[in-house]
């Protein structure tokens, strides 16, 4: 069975601090996708990244970076120099790569960036 665990329910940091959101996953698949989504107060799910299990390179996009460690089944997300606009719920998610595979979400981490 597939499972995504986001142990941090809620995090508060002061603006400009760096913050890391943890994600640990379980799957029996040898090939899979990992995702991060942002859900601001308006409710939409904003796609941030998809990572193929074959690709363990870390990725950086502006202030965002992701650390994929297959050995520990983790896919952590770091926001550098956080801003108030980063306040949202962040979901880590997992899916297989086949036609019938659906995306399984973690419970989410609510991030508060304090001015």
């Amino acid at each position, binding site marked *: 069975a597939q499972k995504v665990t986001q142990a941090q329910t809620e995090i508060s940091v002061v603006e400009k601090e760096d913050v890391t959101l943890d994600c640990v996953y379980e799957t029996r698949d040898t090939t899979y996708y990992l995702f991060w989504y942002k859900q601001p107060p308006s409710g939409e799910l904003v*796609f941030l990244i998809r990572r193929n299990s074959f690709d363990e390179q870390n990725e950086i996009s502006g202030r965002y970076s992701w650390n994929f460690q297959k050995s520990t089944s983790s896919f952590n997300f770091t926001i550098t120099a956080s801003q108030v606009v980063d306040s949202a719920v962040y979901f880590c998610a997992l899916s297989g790569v086949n036609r*019938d595979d659906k995306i399984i979400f973690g419970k989410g981490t609510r991030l508060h960036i304090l001015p």
Partner: protein
Amino acid sequence: AAGVIQSPRHLIKEKRETATLKCYPISRHDTVYWYQQGPGQDPQFLISFYEKMQSDKGSIPDRFSAQQFSDYHSELNMSSLELGDSALYFCASSLVGRGGLNTEAFFGQGTRLTVV
């Protein structure tokens, strides 16, 4: 390019009424997924369709039904609405490649259903 379109964006219904949510996938996408997100919860998979056939089914109540039409749009029909059905309903679409592998799924903006 246009993303996944869901309508309506907001819907208010009374208990025991019926609701129909619509999803228009990205052009040429052949797979549609429906998710339900209750207040403070993570999105939960309801059902998916590939090439107009039901592909997978999650924890979808018997009161709900869905289908995908010839133009690939999908509708989620919800009958005998209950207060607990109040949630955000997301639709996502993807394209299954020739090898049967999914491209990434793109989510619509969601429909917020309130049952009163």
